[in-house]
């Protein structure tokens, strides 16, 4: 049965795809590189290698991970409609006849045909065509009709866009068939010979035959063969005999593609997902949204303030594994009057805004930075803007706090591994979803996590963000006031616009700490309740501020009272304890009462007046001071002489009572000084007994100066600056130049193509899919210029045997390669900068968290080279600072890097590591391949490649 099926993994028509790419105008190439940035990093050396890369599984996976549901449906439709790729070994048809050559019965796969197969109505047709244009631009599709005059951009693309009769004949990018799976759109395989759609089973068919077909029609197209002798079995057998089904193996039957399409009435998809779903949500009035957001914004600003002052009083110790301990979290949560989850977010937020930091001491503790002071002098709106901005750009994942990692360890707030590179993109997407639902009618929709996820699923069906992350981000947004009552608030909107702008054109100053009166602050200022500078004081010793207290009033109340209730108004209570606190801060009764009376529209209640005055009267009745030692004498006259003796002024003598002096100096010093002055003093112990002098002096502990945390914070800030877009235009022109020089040296392109086709058809059958495009180079264009893209050592001999032309890569050295010398020197370069770089930058560029297969850290490894090599790194040992900088970046991003380690015997060992922590001259890292965690002395690290 299997014989009727085609080879499931046919070789792709790489050459045609490459030609199509080459014929693109420069502008289209730049657009391609912009649409799929992984193709341009590292710079491909030739257009051909660019084509190879564009059809590699990794790159396609990544491109698909970012494609929306419509694009995927279009790709599936094209894949289903496009003629099957010819059998290996059969002579290819000339390019010009290609459209009709393979299967004469098939019409061209024009955008119109695709739209029809998708069942698009006239309105959706436009969307489908635009989407096809984008897919063409991203080289996920290509046009099988060669252009007459090479790169002549305008005419072709114009024709394509309008979709005229002579429209393009669409083909999927090579490799796409594998990435999209064996049954695109639930359609079975093409059989050989291709079945022409025949009339569906008529009355002569056995009962149940139609039911079998209908069951398989919309996929999956695989059915289990019923047991022999049963009636369904007869039907299946009949269907197989008549070519409606094919047997794939003894137990399964498949519905061939043509039959499937016929059953579906020519459609490839049952339901076209032309547009993102627009969840209705729950409409909330804009006023409510903004009022809720304002409340949340004030709360978060206050809580960060509480945290800063709490840690100013008592810094929180850092856990040995990094992060903040549960008990300390609970403590700050109590201080903030909130639960632990939101307290953890506040802690993270404060750290992001550079307001608190790990002081780097031993043992490390979390302390407020120097930036906390200027921050706290800002007004509520500016303070909020600083926090919101920090949140908008961060990669941190605070919602994971409290969950356990793979090793079962509880994730703590501020722990270094709480970051994922895709967070900013997801955050922007979530906020955009919220924004898109908005209407102008004054009502804004509040979307649930499921509704947001529904939209995000349409946008990237192959990389659906984890629900927990979306939920976490929505939660954070509500805590922050970016949303109110579940809908995007006005400041949230402003923030989103700023975020998008900053991500597109990042500012170098990264001005987090510096107060920036920007649109965000302005937007939040508008919605905050009006400041009130009055307080209603009442006889039961409470006071009520009927609105948001002004900054001065808030400060006054913070000092003099305790807050009982917060919200639109603030209720405070004055107690003896709070008045004492105010007096401790240096206030006196009269100024306190004047301050309160000035702000009270009603006369100061008498009980409050009495409370303040009585407390003040008692305050300071007992005085405490510090002194190093004391001096007492029975005769006050002796002391009077000492107190005013200029030679003893350095001792800091103060008269406390007629017979007692206190001294700033310690007892030993005082004793010495008095002896030196000729006074016979004796040192006494606590019980008044005279003691031995030498035991009195005690060692003092030096207080370490607090390190400037601002420096730490600002260092962090600049390191996080987002890299700018590479100069794609320059890259494209370089590629063209290489291509042009190659073209001059080589024979006619057609002949080369011919030769390559013959060669590849034999070689490629066994080749690794990822390396498939490569072998074409050494044979068709006998130039060492193609050498760097060699990745398979088995193909080295033919390459090495080729003559040495001009334009060879610098990595191979100035001399022509010796025939028997392997191309090793080029290898590490390619491996180091090319392959790994491309793979490892995936999460950052791709932004596809989690579920997508083939995208992400681990999946990228399948094509990576063996991890141990003895080759020296290209540029010798790196500058240590660079290496450390790279490691820090990687720690921050949670990325993997290639690290060259100097082994015991002095050999270099290259390992792929995910660094976790860098301190004390040691690097702690995880080796994902060996699933081991290791600690490496920094001096053993010879080089680091990102």
């Amino acid at each position: 049965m299997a014989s009727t099926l085609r080879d499931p993994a046919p070789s792709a028509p790489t050459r045609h795809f490459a030609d199509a790419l080459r014929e693109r105008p420069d502008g289209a190439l730049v657009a391609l590189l912009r649409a799929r940035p992984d193709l341009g990093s590292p710079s491909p050396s030739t257009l051909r290698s660019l084509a190879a890369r564009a059809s590699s599984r990794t790159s396609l996976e990544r491109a698909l991970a970012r494609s929306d549901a419509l694009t995927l449906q279009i790709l599936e439709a094209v894949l289903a409609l496009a003629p099957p790729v010819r059998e290996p070994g059969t002579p290819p048809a000339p390019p010009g006849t290609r459209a009709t050559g393979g299967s004469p019965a098939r019409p061209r796969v024009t955008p119109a045909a695709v739209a029809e197969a998708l069942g698009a109505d006239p309105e959706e047709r436009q969307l489908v065509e635009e989407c096809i244009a984008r897919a063409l631009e991203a080289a996920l599709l290509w046009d099988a009709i060669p252009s007459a005059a090479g790169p002549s951009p305008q005419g072709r693309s114009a024709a394509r866009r309008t979709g005229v009769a002579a429209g393009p004949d669409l083909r999927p990018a090579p490799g796409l068939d594998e990435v999209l799976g064996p049954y695109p759109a639930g359609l079975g395989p093409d059989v050989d010979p291709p079945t022409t759609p025949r009339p569906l089973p008529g009355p002569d068919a056995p009962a149940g035959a139609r039911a079998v077909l209908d069951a398989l029609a919309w996929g999956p197209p695989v059915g289990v063969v019923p047991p022999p002798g049963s009636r369904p079995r007869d039907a299946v057998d009949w269907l197989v005999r008549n070519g409606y089904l094919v047997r794939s193996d003894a137990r399964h039957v498949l519905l061939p593609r043509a039959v499937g399409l016929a059953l579906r009435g020519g459609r490839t998809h049952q339901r076209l997902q032309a547009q993102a779903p627009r969840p209705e949500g729950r409409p909330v009035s804009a006023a409510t949204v903004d009022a809720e957001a304002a409340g949340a914004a004030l709360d978060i600003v206050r809580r960060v303030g509480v945290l800063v002052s709490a840690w100013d009083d008592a810094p929180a110790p850092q856990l040995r594994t990094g992060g903040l301990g549960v008990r300390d979290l609970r403590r700050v949560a109590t201080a903030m009057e909130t639960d632990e989850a939101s307290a953890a977010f506040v802690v993270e937020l404060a750290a992001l805004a550079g307001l608190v930091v790990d002081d780097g001491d031993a043992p490390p503790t979390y302390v407020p930075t120097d930036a906390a002071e200027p921050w706290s002098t800002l007004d509520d709106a500016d303070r909020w803007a600083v926090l919101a901005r920090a949140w908008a750009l961060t990669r941190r994942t605070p919602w994971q706090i409290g969950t356990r990692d793979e090793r079962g360890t509880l994730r703590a707030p501020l722990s270094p591994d709480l970051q994922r590179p895709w967070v900013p993109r997801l955050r922007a997407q979530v906020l955009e979803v919220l924004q898109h639902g908005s209407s102008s009618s004054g009502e804004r929709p509040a979307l649930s996590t499921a509704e947001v996820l529904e939209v995000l699923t349409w946008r990237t069906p192959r990389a659906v963000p984890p629900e927990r992350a979306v939920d976490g981000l929505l939660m954070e947004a509500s805590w922050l006031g970016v949303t109110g009552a579940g809908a995007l608030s006005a400041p949230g909107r402003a923030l989103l616009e700023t975020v998008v702008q900053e991500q597109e054109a990042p500012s170098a100053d990264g001005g987090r700490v510096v107060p920036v009166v920007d649109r965000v602050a302005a937007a939040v200022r508008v919605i905050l309740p009006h400041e009130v500078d009055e307080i209603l004081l009442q006889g039961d010793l409470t006071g009520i501020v009927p609105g948001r207290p002004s900054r001065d009033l808030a400060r006054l109340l913070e000092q003099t009272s305790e807050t009982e209730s917060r919200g639109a108004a603030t209720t405070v209570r004055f107690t003896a304890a709070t008045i004492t606190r105010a007096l401790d801060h240096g206030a006196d009764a009269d100024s306190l009462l004047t301050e309160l009376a000035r702000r009270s529209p009603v006369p100061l209640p008498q009980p409050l007046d009495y409370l303040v005055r009585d407390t003040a009267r008692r305050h300071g009745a007992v005085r405490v001071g510090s002194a190093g030692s004391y001096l007492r004498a029975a005769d006050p006259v002796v002391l009077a002489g000492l107190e005013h003796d200029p030679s003893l002024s350095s001792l800091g003598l103060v008269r406390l009572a007629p017979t007692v002096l206190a001294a700033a100096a310690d007892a030993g010093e005082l004793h010495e000084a008095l002896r030196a002055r000729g006074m016979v003093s004796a040192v006494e112990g606590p019980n008044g007994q005279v003691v031995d002098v030498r035991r009195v002096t005690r060692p003092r502990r030096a207080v370490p100066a607090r390190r400037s945390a601002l420096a730490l914070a600002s260092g962090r800030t600049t390191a996080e600056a987002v890299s700018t877009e590479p100069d794609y235009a320059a890259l494209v022109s370089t590629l063209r130049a290489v291509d042009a020089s190659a073209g001059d040296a080589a024979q006619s392109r057609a002949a080369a193509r011919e030769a390559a086709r013959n060669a590849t058809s034999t070689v490629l059958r066994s080749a690794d899919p990822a390396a498939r495009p490569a072998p074409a180079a050494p044979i068709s264009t006998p130039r060492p210029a193609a050498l760097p893209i060699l990745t398979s050592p088995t193909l080295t001999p033919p390459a090495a045997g080729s003559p040495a032309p001009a334009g060879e890569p610098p990595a191979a050295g100035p001399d022509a390669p010796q025939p028997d010398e392997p191309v090793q020197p080029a290898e590490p370069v390619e491996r180091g900068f090319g392959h790994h770089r491309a793979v490892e930058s995936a999460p950052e560029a791709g932004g596809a968290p989690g579920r997508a297969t083939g995208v992400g850290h681990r999946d990228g490894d399948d094509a990576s080279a063996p991890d141990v090599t003895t080759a020296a790194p290209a540029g010798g040992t790196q500058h240590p600072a660079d290496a450390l900088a790279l490691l820090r970046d990687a720690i921050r991003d949670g990325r993997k890097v290639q690290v060259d380690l100097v082994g015991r015997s002095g050999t270099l060992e290259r390992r792929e590591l995910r660094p976790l922590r860098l301190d004390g001259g040691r690097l702690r890292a995880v080796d994902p391949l060996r699933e081991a965690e290791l600690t490496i002395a920094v001096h053993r690290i010879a080089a680091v490649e990102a």
Partner: protein
Amino acid sequence: MTDGPLIVQSDKTLLLEVDHPRAGDARRGIAPFAELERAPEHVHTYRLTPLGLWNARAAGHDAEQVVNTLIEFSRYPVPHALLVDVAETMARYGRLQLATHPVHGLVLTATDRAVLAEVLKSKRTAGLVGDRIDDLTVVVHPSERGHLKQVLVKLGWPAEDLAGYVDGEKHAIELSPTVPGRTPGEAPREWSMRPYQEHAVDGFWHGGSGVVVLPCGAGKTIVGAGAMAKSGTTTLILVTNTVSARQWRDELVRRTSLTEEEIGEYSGARKEIKPVTIATYQVLTTKRKGVYTHLELLDARDWGLVVYDEVHLLPAPIFRMTADLQARRRLGLTATLVREDGREDEVFSLIGPKRYDAPWKDIEAQGYIAPADCVEVRLTMPESERMIYATAEPEDKYRLAASAAGKKHVVEQLVARHPDDQVLVIGQYLDQLLELATHLDAPLITGATTVRERQRLFEAFRSGEISRLVVSKVANFSIDLPEASVAIQVSGSFGSRQEEAQRLGRVMRPKADGRTAHFYAVVARDTVDQDFAAHRQRFLAEQGYAYRIVDAEDLGTESEQEEPAA
């Protein structure tokens, strides 16, 4: 943003600005569902609680009404989460109902299958319910009616009790049209219930069971009597102490057709069971060998009505006993639903929802209770006394401060300020009182005074024969001295807020000439006395009785300025 008088906080407190022109409307609007927590001079604080909202539901208000009221009077946008919460909380009441099934007897029915399933799944309802009859109905053991209601409130699904009440043993009780004079020669006066008392009785009767909230001195006893008359059955009255029990008895005899013979007292001293029996909480909660020995009282008769005086003080064991009385009508009387022990939910589930509530100040405005002026006089102790105080043992400190010698002089000054008033001096410590009595040349009543002597003195005080009376704490509850218009408290029992309110209640009976009552508390400055005083006064301040503080040294100079203001 409207300019309403109400600020709705996200912590579910409502701040009502009293001076706002619409404050009255707002107060009436929120009164059915919000509990008044504090009522100082400018801004009153109400609180939204699930119980309050369920009370409102029980009284026939719905969530929409509540939400609209909040939005209508709120100055700022009402927190969204709060509105959602109000709607959700109110929707929970009445999903479950206790009803009488013609075949199965007492059943719990649900309007929502999921709710019933959730409730039955809980371990707490195990054993309280019997067989499922259908998806929405389950049999309830009649003896567990109270427990089940209690559990359901704890589970957040309060049941509406529609199962009705037993009729109880009939016993005709009627309100007498006249009230006998206080002195033997005085002619009987005609009287009738005040309008708010009638409303309270009606509200209770229509609701079946529940709590009536009235301020001290507003005639809660008469509401009880009215309810008894309406019921016309044998009645069990539970009160806080014996003194209160006697007061109830006297009042019932005067105001109803009941005679002394029909009213029994069940207390530590006497154990009588009559058609109307007044029992104290204390005797009911007395345990001997781990057993409540007086439980049989509850079943001694087929009570048609059970009255709980001072529900906010109801002790926990009584709650447990009350759980078994669910088939009888229950009336709770209290000045405040806020309990210091947080058992409001048990009051709600076992006695019943709030049926009537009248703000203290409203009743004062109608002239049923006298306006009062509260003054705290602070006395600075002389150096010598302060030294003794400073070095005293902690347990002696309060006595020392409370009976500071200087208070004598202060009391003298105060008495001198009110030459035409009937003045009561109330204190805690007998030697101090004795000293004061001698000093003021006034009679003294303590626990040791014989009943005959007491009655003679009270009578003389009422008639104006004597205008000064020094009393110990025996006067806290027992005596009714309507003409006393000045009370001077020289010492109290530590920080009891209730005692303060009771003592204030002494002078708050309405005066014949509408005079303002004066209440003075004399405290020693910078001592525990002052701290306790602050605690006691908090209750009054929260009830809207702003108190002034006067230095003892300023008394002489201040009095002239103060009088016109008062």
